[in-house]
């Protein structure tokens, strides 16, 4: 069976995924390397009766998302690292108010204005503390155009299911490269929202969506409710595992880095090296249990080499997940210096030959 394939950039796949997921409101402010998202949305949303609005700043855009979500729209915004930081106050409010929305971060190098090359430097910001307070996003990290399309569409359903913002964490390489996208119509559920949205209090008592709780017991209860929600999200955990468990070394990587690493792993496996591959797709909740199971399989102690386009962030989650059940090694590439698969292969062989592991 032949399905329709089109050649698109990663960021265009995200925008098409959002449309497939029923997005009807987009608010944003331009920044490289994600401008193709607002460009495409500005053409497509008005045609479908939706709203496209270029705000005067990122702060404004995220608060428009907040307003649209509160009245029941499927709202999204997209930006890149410095713009995401500007939105972080709004993120905290969205989490506190339990408003569903989709936020796309096409990461570029930092800190500060950094550069426009690919980076994974916002990992901590995305998974640990998108804003102040104890709040979390559900974070999805696609690594291809097809996945970017499918995950973005699904993100709208997940956001409504948990009444929580969902972040799509991409980067400049995945965003700017073109590859074939198979257009499908994903099955995205629309959840009942009539019991909480601010739709006008005609024939019913008024509702309040607020984040200020001056009564300390009430605030604690609120935080515990959010915590339970994050635990429930664990059923959404996704990962890709290319490892039997008998390998000596497992590469752990996500996003664009996972693609470079996968090539290196395939090449080495073809030459008989005992190397496996593990790719978290949900970064929060993190696939802790799956990593542990892999570490314990075949009753053989393994090395875990965590490769990232930053100075070493996800490695801390891998170390905490494994809890001493494997030797953790970090291979960290600061933004802009992209390694080739051959470079990773060389590092893997070096790590295989290490008799004592450098524990992080």
């Amino acid at each position, binding site marked *: 069976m032949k399905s329709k*394939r089109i*050649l698109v950039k990663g960021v265009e796949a995200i925008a098409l995924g959002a449309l497939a997921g029923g997005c009807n409101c987009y608010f944003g402010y331009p920044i490289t*390397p994600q401008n193709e998202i607002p460009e495409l949305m500005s053409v497509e949303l008005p045609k479908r009766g939706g709203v496209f609005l270029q705000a005067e700043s990122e702060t404004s855009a995220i608060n428009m998302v907040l307003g649209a979500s509160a009245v029941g729209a499927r709202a999204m915004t997209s930006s890149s690292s410095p713009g995401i930081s500007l939105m972080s106050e709004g993120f905290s409010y969205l989490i506190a108010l339990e408003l569903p929305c989709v936020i796309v971060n096409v990461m570029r190098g930092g800190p500060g204005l950094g550069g*426009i090359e690919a980076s994974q430097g916002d990992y901590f910001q995305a998974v640990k503390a998108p804003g102040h307070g104890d709040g979390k996003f559900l974070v999805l990290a696609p690594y291809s155009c097809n996945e970017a399309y499918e995950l973005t569409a699904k993100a709208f359903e997940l956001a409504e299911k948990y009444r929580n913002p969902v972040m799509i964490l991409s980067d400049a390489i995945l965003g700017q*490269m*073109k*590859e074939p996208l198979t257009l499908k119509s994903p099955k995205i559920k629309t959840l009942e929202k009539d019991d909480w949205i601010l739709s006008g209090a005609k024939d019913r008592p008024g509702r309040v969506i607020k984040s200020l709780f001056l009564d300390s017991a009430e605030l604690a209860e609120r935080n515990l409710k959010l915590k339970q929600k994050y635990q429930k999200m664990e059923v959404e955990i996704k990962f890709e595992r290319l490892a039997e468990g008998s390998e000596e070394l497992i590469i752990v990587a996500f996003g664009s880095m996972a*693609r*470079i690493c996968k090539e290196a792993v395939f090449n080495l496996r073809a030459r008989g090296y005992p190397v496996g591959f593990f790719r978290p797709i949900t970064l929060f909740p993190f696939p802790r249990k799956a990593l542990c199971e892999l570490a314990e399989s075949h009753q053989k102690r393994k090395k875990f080499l965590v490769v990232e386009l930053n100075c070493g962030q996800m490695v801390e989650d891998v170390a905490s997940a494994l809890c001493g059940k494997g030797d953790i090694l970090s291979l960290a590439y600061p933004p802009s210096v992209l390694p080739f698969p051959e*470079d990773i292969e060389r590092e893997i062989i070096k790590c295989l030959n290490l008799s004592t592991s450098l524990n992080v």
Partner: protein
Amino acid sequence: MRFEIILSGFGGQGILFAGNLLALAGMYQGYQVSFLPVYGPEMRGGTCHCTVIISDREISSPLVKEPGYLIVLNLPSFFKFIPRLRSGGLAIVNSDLVERRETEEFHNLTMDKEILWLPLSSLAEQAGSPLALNMCAIGAFNGLLKLFSEKIFKKALREMLGKDKAHLFEVNRRAYLKGKSAIKNLKESI
């Protein structure tokens, strides 16, 4: 089967257009493809390049260290990418902007590599527009490797040009054919 190609030249020589077209035609021919442009400050004045992979298997890394094929449209690109060309690899070089004698003292760079010199700029002018040298290069490349059919080239070119530039279709197609016959003549003369 897997082809890794780096295309490089001045910003404005149509490198990204040509790379994108190559990937699109590859996709229509039924292959897996990836097209990775380099963007940003490099686009203005300096060299601009892109990486295209055409394969019958899934493509993991879009980055290629040592490509099997190069399309080189200017001198800086020659020195930047010929050292990265895989041993046994093949480069199509624009001899109008890369003079052979300028590169002769660096002959160690081209050992074990096949360099095909074609006057792509002049061929494009003969085809009707100096701007179409990128299509001469694609014509030469596909004439050599026969990755996609004439019909698919036309389909991809039409899509790339869109409605706004549809009037440029014929000149681009002529340039493609010029490149294709030039490489055929060159291969026959070697």
